[in-house]
């Protein structure tokens, strides 16, 4: 009877092996940031980020392994080698650059203020004392903290938007495209002021310069041959891989 335990121990030990090897490209996404990453009816990860990750893997002749991971811990997961990279809509910031390396931007968007229909707030004066809901560890959380001291943090942007939709909090700051998609899917909220443009990059561990160079090379070729554009068209009806710079930063 006691021998029965051996297969279990072996299985556990097998689990300890690093998931990163040469043949696979393991990349993390939150799966809670529709339409950039979400899980479909079959439970598989889908979205703009996932398509980009899969395409990159294909071009590097590796097997794509998308992994769902809670957004607040993804950067640390990359840093600790839990996955090869994060294709998770990370805005490139100096704070994050202290911990991981970023590729060139693979799309451009920006934070936007969302409120319930009919309500109006203007940054920065009009939102000073307001209850702002954001997702944990996001650049929106950092941004919102500059305006107000009444922050409500959720594990995902969608949950924050849903809370706003059900009459909680005053406003949500999140990605403009994600907010627009949520409205399309029936949330009774509206997008107001945009608060600048953000550049989203793929995060890799700092010491993994080889992968970083490879990813940059493939991203550039995806830009020139129109692949990145067509992924954008698939999800948003337009190319989001080029900077628009029409958005003025809020001051």
């Amino acid at each position: 009877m006691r021998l029965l335990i051996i297969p279990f121990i072996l299985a556990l030990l097998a689990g300890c092996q690093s998931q990163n090897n040469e043949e696979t490209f393991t990349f993390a996404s939150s799966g809670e940031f529709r339409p950039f990453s979400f899980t479909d009816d079959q439970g598989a990860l889908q979205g703009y980020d996932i398509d980009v990750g899969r395409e990159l893997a294909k071009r590097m002749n590796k097997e794509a392994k998308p992994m769902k991971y809670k957004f607040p811990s993804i950067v640390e997961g990359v840093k600790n080698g839990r996955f090869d990279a994060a294709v998770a809509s990370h805005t490139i910031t100096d704070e994050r650059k202290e911990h991981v390396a970023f590729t060139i931007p693979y799309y451009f968007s920006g934070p936007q203020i969302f409120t319930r229909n009919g309500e109006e707030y203007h940054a920065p004066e009009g939102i000073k004392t307001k209850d702002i809901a954001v997702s944990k560890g996001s650049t929106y959380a950092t941004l919102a903290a500059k305006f107000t001291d009444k922050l409500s943090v959720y594990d995902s942007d969608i949950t924050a938007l849903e809370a706003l939709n059900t009459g909680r909090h005053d406003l949500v700051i999140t990605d403009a495209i994600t907010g627009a998609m949520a409205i399309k899917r029936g949330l009774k909220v509206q997008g107001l002021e945009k608060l600048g443009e953000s550049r989203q990059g793929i995060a890799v561990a700092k010491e993994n310069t080889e992968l970083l160079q490879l990813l940059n090379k493939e991203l550039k070729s995806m830009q020139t041959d129109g692949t990145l554009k067509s992924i954008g068209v698939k999800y948003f009806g337009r190319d989001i891989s080029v900077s628009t710079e029409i958005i003025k930063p809020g001051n």
Partner: protein
Amino acid sequence: MPSFAHLFETFVSSAPLFLKGALLTFELSLASVLIGLAIGLFFAFLSLSKIRALNAISNFYITLVRGTPLIVQIFVLYFGLTDVVQISGFLAATLALAFHNGAYLSEIFRGAIQSIDRGQYEAAKSLGMTSYQTYARIILPQAFLRALPALGNQFIIALKDSSLAAFISMDELFNMATTQGANNFDQMTYLIIVAVYYLVMVMALSHLVNLVEVKLKRSGAT
């Protein structure tokens, strides 16, 4: 693992934030345990009733609450009730925790009350006590003492379970830790710190339960 010096430094610098979180954790736990005790006692009596319909009601409640995860109950109260009534996050978390703990507490009370010897009821009756007097003066004080270790256990669980309120954006201890961890890219440090806070709170709580137990035993409630 973060170094001890770094841990200590962060522990001190984050203390104002975490104490605020600890206060909310304390409030959530206390409110939900008090309401939970009332709910628990109420359903324990329903379970003990000779009326079948009342047994069925309490059985339904206990099955429903014990059969579903607390996190689901919290989300249902937070998002599901908004069509009917808009309740605050604090109220949603408190009610969910109270309903959750109430089910377990009612089973603890039921067991404790049932463990009291039949002779006690008969003696009370022979002294001319009413049913209410019997329970208030004879049965419940003894049952409470017997239930105390299990109650203490449940209080500890309630305190730690209040961390699930983090998911509906309550700034209690756990949410403080994961938010700071995410902001500083340093989850492990903040998780260790928050563990220390919970540990201290749980130790204080179990000490308190012990004190009450000793005191009650001395006062001769048995």
